[in-house]
């Protein structure tokens, strides 16, 4: 039986598959795709049989350092680079060792939550889950990282 596509195939660009269900919009935030962006983006949320979200971005091949930040909220996401309707590259996101300017520190008294010219920076460690250690104040974010996305 031929599978019915919910969103049409894209000719060129990036398809991010296996995003944890409900996190597609957070993925867009991490990628900086927001009001004013010009990219053509399709979002499918809560795909019923696999409990996942999918994001398709046309005419933009995301580089590894751009997409690996997605691993913060969705470590099983798969990146597909599409050229002329064919998948030319497929790989899992890899958790980076450090992130800058993506997540704000949960400590309201941290220097990064002031008007100082400093971006929040975290060292990432893997414990039972993902742990973000603030380089400045040392506070650790373990749960609900999405809540602290900038």
């Amino acid at each position: 039986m031929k599978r019915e596509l919910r969103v049409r195939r894209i000719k060129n660009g990036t398809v991010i598959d296996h995003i944890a269900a409900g996190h597609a919009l957070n993925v867009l935030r991490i990628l900086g795709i927001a009001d004013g962006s010009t990219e053509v983006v399709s979002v499918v949320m809560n795909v019923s049989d696999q409990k996942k979200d999918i994001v398709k971005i046309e005419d933009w091949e995301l580089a590894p350092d751009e997409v690996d930040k997605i691993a913060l909220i969705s470590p099983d996401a798969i990146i597909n680079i599409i050229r002329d309707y064919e998948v030319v590259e497929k790989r899992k996101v890899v958790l980076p060792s450090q992130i800058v300017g993506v997540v704000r520190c949960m400590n309201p008294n941290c220097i990064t939550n002031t008007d100082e010219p400093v971006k929040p920076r975290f060292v990432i460690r893997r414990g039972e889950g993902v742990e973000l250690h603030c380089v400045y104040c040392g506070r650790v974010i373990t749960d609900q990282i999405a809540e602290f996305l900038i």
Partner: protein
Amino acid sequence: MLNRTAGLRDVMPHVISIRDFSRDEIDRILDRAAELEPIAHGGSSDLLAGRILATLFHEPSTRTRLSFDAAMKRLGGSVIDFGSIEGSAVSKGENLADTIAVVSGYADAIVLRHPKEGAARMASEFSRVPIINAGDGAGQHPTQTLLDLYTIRKESTLDRVKIAIVGDLKYGRTVHSLVYALSLYNAEIHLVSPDQLKVPESLTNDLSESGTRITETTDLDEVIDYVDVMYLTRIQKERFPDPNEYRTVAGSYRITEETLKRVKDDLIIMHPLPRVDEIDYGVDSSRHAVYFKQSFYGVPVRMAILSMVMGDGTAATGGW
């Protein structure tokens, strides 16, 4: 120690957090402090002659500020500061990054106390001279930790010491750094506090995973006749969002002459000061009381740090 930041600052020895130091590096600082201690007892030196230290205190300080001042002057250097916050560019809205960029052009090292956690780490990224953290909010206060270690080493035994840390273990910034540093010396650590002032679970978990022997109790009597060191802390009113909570716990674990009848002969009692009512004045004259010596040891320890970041080059390359 060394928080080395990128580029030109690769070899700059900042003092930001005790967690940046290895045991060997700490030992080198304590050794240097022991060498310099005779000068701290009323001597003088020209080790840092011609050098300038800037002290930027965005929060009140007595001991830390004065002992840095004394340490620098004992070594022949001079000290500049911006006086009160009200009279400085800070009151005109200048941010910390700009203040540091400016002052690092005037001095050979900067001592910084700031109410925001992580302020010293950030300052190190904007400074052309070493930053010494003199307390950042509820965060780090590494020179206090170093003088605490020096006191234990001089007045008791640092390696495998049995220590009770008593009082406000949640908000007291000296405690977290000290507990971490003691873990490097295989200490047996007994944390004594009311339930609402226990150390954060993340710290005890970290230490337990590293194999540190650590217990927690609300009852000082459980360990009072067993430990070598009793480290008392002030229950700080300003750290409590709820004044009722403060009143409930204030005055817990008060040490009196009566208490001392149950302790080991060679127990030492330490306190970062100022005290409120944790230690009765009658205890001051006992052989156990070392808290005023501890306060004095801030001078040789800070002399060691200043000389190592500015004077003798021992911190400039290859670690402390």
